[in-house]
């Protein structure tokens, strides 16, 4: 029973000027019955921390509530490594810096936050982190540039690596490139002879079971089938060229002399570049850039490497014939950074001709040549050019969604992908992450890129994978709740097998038994709490985050009588974007209405609708939910959290109508972290609308 509560109030950073600390102490010791309550002008200093540490060491206190700056700051200072519960109350960014000093409403806000913080602290339980035997072997799938780099990096860091390649030899596509073959050969050799890398060629992953730290990967090889225990997985399965048979409008198929950039690369790697129809040297060639790329009918994206690919291939041609005519028809030449130098150099050759344009047709011409007609050129007209060879610079299609991983997961055998076929991830903040914890995508399997970037990618993904194994070994979550050693527990006796949690978990952490009862794989869990929000029976909880805990915080809010004309608004905000945004508003000293009470949620997807009912039935006038942006360009750190919350609200609105409450009392807003300046307006506007609606009729009931 947590009973030895200690409340520590910092009066530094203008908190003491804005608030009456004595009243706060009175609230803590009186109403909240805290046996220990101290104030200090600089709690984060050695002396301030000493007070707390001393109380902990003398066992005068086992539950610490620190009221001062935002919990996003001074995390190390207030980490006492003691196993005790430490809860932070944000009196600085959310109270003192953004509300009228020495004001009744500001004081009420601070006291409410103190009540809520104490409620939260008292509902937090100490607990042991997960501890199982964790494998520190990294499995890398795909032995191309990316995969080999990932394997070498992990091995260099001292980890055991198993590298699985489906072809006979390592090297991937780069091994068939004239420019890269030699380099890749060297890279492959260093992997082959590395003492910590076990290379399996002609091998495929047939099944993956388990979770980070304990994946059981069944691999079929020429020698049979074996199961490998791996701690984490890097998916570097690369790409295939876009299917050129769909590019008949660009002449593919009308003549053997219309080829793709991949065909040309193979030809150039093997020997001289010849016209396929005659086996004679090529005297003139036309490259069609973006062949089936950046095109709604084909690949909507830019593969980013084809412009440079073409420039390199022109280089091969120049080596064999300095006088050959080379035409390049592009949408835009994309050669960022140093690549621009290559573009300039190639452009400088008198016999290289570049123009923007759209290829209208490719048709046979006299002497077996091909006539290419191009519209909308920079020359001001449509032009026709006759050439020996047409090269279609086709884009990259990721090998990420078919028969790669064969996961024995309830949510499907492969990585969830976005509309373009690349693995879904919060790619702005966490490259390499996928929606399967412990499995990291790298190279073109993740996003289109060239070989140089693929190496960086292999390195990055390897580091993330190693990190994930180490976190698993400590029983901690990976990004974005890195270091969190809580985990969800399921009170399965009350489970109704509705499957909402197993369906909604963005990371596929929950499998099911035959009846549909969730079977948690806790090492896959990212601790977002979406299962907790999904569960209608409220059987999911964390030791430090639960439906009951948030409900207690809501109940701790003091709701003034109707006559006082002080509306109360509850804001449930995402801790990843909206909460830091609100801190920023405080740092910038933006002022807003002091009638709003903010509770951070791990993700808006962990919103359990019972909280809304709790709030409104207690007379709180309105509930504001602030989550990350969702949709195609979502910014949710847990992929779908705010979208799921929005879906759950649909049901709540009906409930509101039944209770004869205006639907306007509930509002969900999407907010990005850089939109902090919109928050004051949002709060003020919402409170104003609540005033207009009049008090919640359930007030005081």
């Amino acid at each position, binding site marked *: 029973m947590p009973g030895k509560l200690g409340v520590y109030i910092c009066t530094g950073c203008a908190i003491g000027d804005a608030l009456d600390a004595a009243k706060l102490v009175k609230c803590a010791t009186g109403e909240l019955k805290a046996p220990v309550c101290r104030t200090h002008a600089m709690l984060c200093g050695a002396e301030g921390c000493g007070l707390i540490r001393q109380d902990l060491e003398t066992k005068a206190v086992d539950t610490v509530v620190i009221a001062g700056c935002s919990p996003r700051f001074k995390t190390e200072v207030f980490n006492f490594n003691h196993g005790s519960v430490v809860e932070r109350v944000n009196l600085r960014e959310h109270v003192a810096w953004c509300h009228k000093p020495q004001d009744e409403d500001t004081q009420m806000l601070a006291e409410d936050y103190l009540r809520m913080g104490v409620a939260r602290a008292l509902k937090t339980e100490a607990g042991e982190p997960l501890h199982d035997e964790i494998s520190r072997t990294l499995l890398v799938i795909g032995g191309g540039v990316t995969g080999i780099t990932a394997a070498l990096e992990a091995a260099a860091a001292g980890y055991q690596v198993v590298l699985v390649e489906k072809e006979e030899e390592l090297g991937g596509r780069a091994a068939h490139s004239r420019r890269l073959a030699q380099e890749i050969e060297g890279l492959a050799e260093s992997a082959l002879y590395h003492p910590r890398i076990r290379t399996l060629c002609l091998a495929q992953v047939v099944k993956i079971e388990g979770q980070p730290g304990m994946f059981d990967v069944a691999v079929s090889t020429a020698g049979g089938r074996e199961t490998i225990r791996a701690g984490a997985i890097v998916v570097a399965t690369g790409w295939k060229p876009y299917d050129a048979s769909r590019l008949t409008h660009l002449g593919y198929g009308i003549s053997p002399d219309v080829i793709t950039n991949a065909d040309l690369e193979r030809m150039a790697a093997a020997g001289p570049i010849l016209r396929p129809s005659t086996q004679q040297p090529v005297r003139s060639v036309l490259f069609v850039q973006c062949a089936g790329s950046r095109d709604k009918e084909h690949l909507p994206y830019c593969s980013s490497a084809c412009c440079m690919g073409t420039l390199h291939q022109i280089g091969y041609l120049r080596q064999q014939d300095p*006088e050959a005519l080379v035409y390049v028809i592009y949408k835009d030449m994309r050669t960022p950074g140093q690549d621009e130098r290559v573009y*300039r150099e190639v452009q*400088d050759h008198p016999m290289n001709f*570049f*123009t923007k344009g759209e290829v209208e047709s490719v048709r046979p011409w006299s002497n077996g040549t091909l006539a290419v*007609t191009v519209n909308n050129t920079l020359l*001001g007209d449509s*032009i026709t050019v006759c050439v020996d060879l047409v090269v279609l610079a086709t884009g990259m299609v990721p090998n990420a969604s078919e028969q790669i991983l064969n996961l024995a997961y309830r949510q499907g055998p492969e990585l969830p992908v976005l509309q373009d076929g690349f693995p879904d991830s919060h790619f702005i903040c966490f490259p390499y992450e996928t929606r399967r914890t412990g499995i990291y995508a790298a190279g073109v399997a993740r996003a289109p890129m060239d070989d140089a970037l693929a190496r960086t990618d292999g390195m990055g993904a390897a580091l993330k994978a190693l990190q994930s194994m180490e976190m698993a070994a400590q029983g901690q979550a990976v990004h974005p709740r890195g270091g969190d050693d809580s985990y969800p527990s399921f009170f399965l006796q009350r489970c109704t097998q509705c499957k909402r949690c197993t369906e909604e978990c963005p990371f596929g952490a929950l499998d099911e038994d035959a009846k549909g009862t969730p079977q948690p794989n806790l090492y896959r869990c990212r601790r977002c709490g979406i299962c907790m929000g999904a569960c209608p029976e409220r059987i999911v909880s964390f030791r430090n985050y639960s439906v009951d805990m948030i409900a207690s915080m809501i109940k701790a809010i003091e709701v003034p009588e109707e006559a006082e004309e002080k509306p109360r608004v509850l804001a449930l905000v995402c801790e990843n974007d909206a909460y830091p945004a609100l801190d920023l508003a405080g740092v910038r000293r933006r002022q807003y209405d002091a009638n709003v009470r903010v509770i951070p949620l791990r993700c808006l997807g962990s919103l359990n609708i019972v909280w809304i009912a709790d709030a409104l039935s207690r007379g709180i006038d309105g509930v504001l939910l602030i989550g990350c942006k969702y949709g195609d360009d979502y910014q949710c750190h847990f992929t779908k959290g705010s979208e799921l919350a929005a879906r759950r609200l649909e049901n709540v609105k009906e409930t509101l109508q039944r209770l004869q409450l205006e639907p306007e009392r509930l509002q969900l807003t999407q907010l990005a972290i850089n939109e902090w300046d919109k928050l004051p307006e949002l709060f003020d506007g919402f409170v104003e609308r609540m005033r207009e609606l009049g008090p919640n009729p359930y007030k005081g009931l």
Partner: protein
Amino acid sequence: MAEAVLVQPDASLIREIIAMGGGDLKKCYQCGTCAVSCDLSAEDVSFPRRQMLAAQWGLRDRLMEDPGPWLCFYCGGCTTRCPRKANPGEVMMALRRYLTAQYDWTGLSGLMYRSAFWEIGALALVAALVVLAFVLPHGFGFGLLAQSPAALESVNLGQFAPKEIVHIADRLLALLLGLLLLVNASRMFRALTRGKDIPLGAYLRAIPNLLVEAATQRRWRGCQDHTAASNWRRHLLLVTGYATIFTLVVVFLPWFQVEDSGFHWTSLLGYYAAGILLWSTASMLWDRARRRSEMHRFSELSDWLFPALLFLTALTGILLHAFRLSNWPMATCTMYVIHLAIAVPMLVVEVPFGKWAHLFYRPVAIYVAAVSRESSKGSSSNLGARSN
């Protein structure tokens, strides 16, 4: 959409333009900054972007039909603003060299623009011929002096170089060079007007403008670059000096060439011409040497030779005049030959084959651009239209 044009790049053209100073030509990536920043570029005759592309792609017909290169006065604004350092200003200059060579049916122009050996060689050859003309005959020049030393007692150009003969010779030369130039200019005219249906009336109506343009380079005034006004003034002065001396020599030589050491009023006009020519060409050469403004940053041999020879012509002319007034017979005769050995090669090489020809080509191009604009009013042409 119009019928697609069959494009066959002319490799030799690209190499020739590069050899004539357009070495940065291929760097252009067609952003069009040059054309939009040029005060003189117009929608119907747009430059330099179009010419950059036509040259890059080796499209000879397009360049031959295009008056654009001659409509540019090379302020260099495009070069300054070019994000790719493709130097459009100098490429336009190279194009003018290339076109001058193309208009010339003898092919000599091209040889001289491509090779310093040919250019210097041609000048030296003509100079040698001039000197030989004064050395070889017996009753004339140094031959005469050798026979009758009495001729050296006082300045007597009437014996050394009788003005009747010189006058006939200079008019013959003017006629010959004029004819060559006329042939080249008519080839230019035909190239510019090919495929264009321009009524005779339009040509006639534009003649007054042609004359004004030829005399004053009025179009240059449209350029807002800070260097344009002073360059135009200097050039206009040079034109007046040049026109004065040209008229004196070709029309009024019997009065202008005074044969004894006396003074004649025509020398006053000569002073004007010599003063202007010396100052303006010296200042142009100085600018080229300093390479401060865009126009003067890149100099091919041909850019040096024309002003240098003009300067030397004026210098030797004024020295000849001084020696004659001083009554130094041998010095006068020698300077007379040196003067001609500079002026004649300059004219022979530069008028039909070189930089001098811009006196004709520029006004003709402006003229053709004006008449084709007038005749195409109402009917639209996509020739100058930007595609994006």
